[in-house]
């Protein structure tokens, strides 16, 4: 456990050194992702951060069966928007769930992250989408 805290502390310092903490959370544009490309990631859910303004999902998997699985970070919109636009629940994805994610990759090559288009629970076939414009009508159910 001590090791965990030490690791977390070291990570935080590294993150700050990388300049990632000075400009912090915001409702941001998604233009760092390449909307002209789409990839599929197959793997297992490590963790879903059900937070505002952007939910993130860590998945251990691969986009290429010839490559060893790695940790990917998939970002999406806010919890409220996911509930209204994509039928999500806080427990829609749980650690260990086997999933297939379709996503827009980062423009910068080699980054293991992307913007979620949809995710499928392999065991049930349930699909969750993330297009915030899908909620543009009254009386959604």
């Amino acid at each position, binding site marked *: *456990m*001590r090791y*965990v*805290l030490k*690791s*977390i502390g070291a*990570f*935080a310092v*590294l*993150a*700050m050194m*990388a*300049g*990632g*903490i000075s*400009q*912090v*959370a*915001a*409702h*941001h*544009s*998604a*233009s*760092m992702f*390449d909307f002209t490309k789409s990839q599929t990631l197959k793997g297992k859910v490590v*963790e879903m*951060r059900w*937070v*505002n*303004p*952007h939910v*993130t999902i*860590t998945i251990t998997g691969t986009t290429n069966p010839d490559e060893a699985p790695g940790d990917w*970070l998939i*970002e999406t*919109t*806010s*919890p*409220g*928007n996911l*509930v*209204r636009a994509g039928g999500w629940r806080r427990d829609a994805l749980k650690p260990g769930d086997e999933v297939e994610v379709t996503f827009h990759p980062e*423009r*910068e090559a080699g*980054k293991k*992250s992307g913007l979620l288009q949809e995710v499928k629970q392999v065991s049930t076939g349930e699909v969750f989408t993330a297009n*915030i*414009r899908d*909620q*543009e*009508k*009254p*009386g*959604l*159910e």
Partner: protein
Amino acid sequence: MKSGPIGIASVALFTLVLASSIASAQAPQKAPAVVNPPPTAQDWADIAKLPDWSGVWNPKISDQDAQVKTNPPPWNEAAAKKIAKMFAEEKAGRPFLVFSNCLPEALPSWMLVTHNAMEILFTPGRVTMLGESDGNRIRRIYTDGRDHPETSDPTFHGHSIGHWEGDTLVIDTTDIVPEAPLAVSEAAGLPNNGDMHVIERIHLADKDILHDDLEIIAPNILTKPWKTTRIFFRQRARKFDIVEGVCATGDLVERVNADGDHVFVPVQKSEWGHTTAVPAK
């Protein structure tokens, strides 16, 4: 020299007058406090006569997107150059963070570019708007007949006074901090730089569609007032009730520390605002 009775009386009278004048100088007459009277049964009955704006309202984002091209603000020359640069940077994958540090989107940008829902509450003398996603999204609109304050105390959402014209709520907002952005998207917006004035007419355009007709007067960045309408859809399904959302948690993840305490620790963010790494459990 001895003082006679008249001399003693004169000194006493002088002392009394002097003390009295000092006291009055130290304690000037106070204006009576302005109080907010308790609402009456009639005040509550009058609330029932207002249009029904209950439920959760979510924005028409596709119309926000469209108006970037169809109805841009009349930026002045300097502002137009900055906005053009922001659009170019966004197109290149380096979006500017208009809403950094989880500060409120503020007025009028909350109404202009929000991607999140809101709810609207009526109580006697006031309309309150509560936003999803940021704990600090709240607008207090006074409908009790008061005026704007004589002494400006700028805030993110400004000082709003409103009145009803039929079923339309007319809101006049001043005293917005100069740093509050006038934004057309999450990646394009500029500080208003002071003296911004926002006039809104909010009304039902259909049974479950709310329109906010805005007129934005921002003399330091616009050449003339900008008029735009923003559209919101009503949801009544209980699963869409607005829940607490704290923007700062976007920078953090829940972990258990060495002492067994549940704590938040930072995640790694890019300079464009997206999460790039989360510390392992």
